[in-house]
């Protein structure tokens, strides 16, 4: 029953009969800072298959974005370091590839959409030029063909009057439209995996709905694997197939999305779900997870969540819980996951 999270037994990789597109396996990332070594990612494993949406849910400092940056190879090293772990794309460990071979995969077969579209776009070039650059650089297209492709892509992400707006500059677009341009750039080379890091956090609700709908449609059209990194439990419930809840650099619960929302198996995911107000219910006092997320420089002993956990027992302070396998597709890093599931702990 007790397993170390390895690729074969890991609940998030146990999809049958299909090789995952992307597998993160026991990944560790450290940062050297003035105050000491920060272990930002501490043995994270997850997989994404074609056409599948994985939501990585966590608060700031949980390591969810650092994991994505490690996949994309956009961590600054140093101060960052990957002491352990593998990131396999179609079975090949990207961390062992040459820089050149790696850059063939990153950006082309794995692409990323960032939160802040305004700062991710270059203000002195037209959007058409920036989208077209993908084709000029990676596909050696002529300027004219690249421009034509850029217009096609802008239409694909539903930017109205794409032909007229292709020579506009980023600041002439609204926030939602800029995010569409970012998405157009990321899907330009038909990636197999798309990583979206908080793609709608900076946007209004109605625009957020438009963008999430667009992402879902694009995914359906091209059968991409989607990794959605977010702190928003509502967005996760809307689009994800499975979910990895991260806390202090580890996955504390990994499961199909319906399972987690119906009956969370980790006190942290349970606390999060209980602590958010809902638009469809007028609630009583909110349940509040007490305390603060841990200081990564001074991590609590045992289970990192134990100082904030209402169900804490003595061994939680001393023993680091492994990711216990609950079923073929579900895991929880809580010594007492059974009691959490049954509701018999209090």
């Amino acid at each position, binding site marked *: 029953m007790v397993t170390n999270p390895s690729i074969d037994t890991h609940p998030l990789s146990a999809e049958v009969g299909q090789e995952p597109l992307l597998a993160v396996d026991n990944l560790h990332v450290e940062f050297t800072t003035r105050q000491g070594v920060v272990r930002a990612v501490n043995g994270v494993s997850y997989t994404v298959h074609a056409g599948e949406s994985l939501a990585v849910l966590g608060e700031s400092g949980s390591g969810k974005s650092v994991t994505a940056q490690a996949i994309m190879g956009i961590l600054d090293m140093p101060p960052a370091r990957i002491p352990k772990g593998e990131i396999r794309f179609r079975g090949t460990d990207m961390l062992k590839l040459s820089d050149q071979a790696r850059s063939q995969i990153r950006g082309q077969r794995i692409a990323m959409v960032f939160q802040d579209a305004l700062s991710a776009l270059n203000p002195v070039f037209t959007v058409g030029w920036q989208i077209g650059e993908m084709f000029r650089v990676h596909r050696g297209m002529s300027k004219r063909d690249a421009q034509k492709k850029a217009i096609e892509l802008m239409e694909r992400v539903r930017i109205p009057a794409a032909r007229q707006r292709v020579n506009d500059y980023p600041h002439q677009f609204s926030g939602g439209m800029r995010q569409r341009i970012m998405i157009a750039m990321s899907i330009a080379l038909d990636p197999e995996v798309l990583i979206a890091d908080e793609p709608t956090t900076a946007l209004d*609700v109605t625009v957020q709905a*438009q963008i*999430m709908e667009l992402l879902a449609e694009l995914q359906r059209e091209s059968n991409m694997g989607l990794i959605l990194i977010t702190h928003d439990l509502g967005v996760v*419930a809307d689009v994800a197939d499975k979910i990895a809840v991260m806390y202090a650099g580890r996955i504390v619960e990994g499961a199909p999305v319906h399972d987690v929302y119906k009956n969370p198996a980790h006190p942290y995911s349970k606390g999060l779900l209980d*602590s958010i*107000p809902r638009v469809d219910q007028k*609630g009583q006092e*909110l349940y509040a997870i007490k305390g603060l997320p841990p200081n990564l420089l001074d991590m609590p002993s045992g289970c990192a969540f134990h100082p904030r956990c209402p169900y804490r027992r003595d061994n939680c302070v001393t023993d680091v819980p492994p990711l216990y396998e609950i079923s073929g597709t579900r895991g929880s890093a809580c010594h007492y996951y059974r009691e959490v599931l049954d509701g018999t702990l209090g």
Partner: protein
Amino acid sequence: MAPSGDRILEVRDLVKHFPLTQGIVLKRQIGAIKAVDGVSFDLHRGETLGVVGESGCGKSTLAKLLMALERPTSGEVKINGVDMAKAHGGELKRMRRNIQMVMQDPYTSLNPRMTVGDIVGEPFEIHSEVAPKGDRRRKVQELLEVVGLNPEHINRYPHQFSGGQRQRIGIARGLALQPEIIICDEPVSALDVSIQAQVMNLLERLQNEFNLAYIFIAHDLSVVRHISDRVAVMYLGKIVELGKDDAIYERPSHPYTQALLSAVPVPDPEGRETRERIILQGDPPSPADPPSGCRFRTRCWKAQDVCAEHEPLLEVRTGGHLSACHFAEVHDVIGA
């Protein structure tokens, strides 16, 4: 929830236009950004009025007008019957004791060069009549305790605290002068999910303890629903719908409110395929050049000729609450 006789804030026809000018030496006005364009509402003692809307709807300008940080182009902001928008000097300063604010960003709203004690004690230095000098340190420590911070941390600096703790410091500063009204401008949107609940519970506890009235401005409709007694929905500088919270959330009659509610992701994957979604096309128009008649008509699926010609007034319509739509029609979009 809101005894009608206990009205402490009356806002009437509040308008704020920011002039758009051209030329450097000889400036001439070529237009105006109509950030707030005729807003009226009341606030009662101990009540929370939620204000929701998307960026650019004027809700942040509204907060500044209520705090007299901006002067309105026209209209009134009456606190206990006195118009704060026309008050000056000592009178304005005295009125400020009664209305305070909690700001969105806990990282920029506290002066990084001041200790927590100086920040929370500054209201007493500005209004020295409130607390005698020798008593201030004790009062600051009491305030820290009320908002759930360790009073011994009085000599620490803001950067030594986490986001949620900083927001508590901001709340303590807002409470210091014992105001009756607190304007909360997106007070939890910059915080982590697990910290949001702590701060919202704190705000609710303080409201009960001190009978505070809140104006709670936010873009997150779930948060607003949780904390508000009444809710105002703003679009392009105007209130389009105003009513008790269950009226707005369960019986919305304005198409914009319905679209807004349907777009909110519900943290429950069950039934996500069957949920009704009204996906609005395009972006809100510029507040410098709002559409004629009803401002929402350019994105509205119900729009007809009359919407371009006549501006719908905010009045009690079907559903029993205030709504500004010619074709107001109750439609429960979230299935509550």
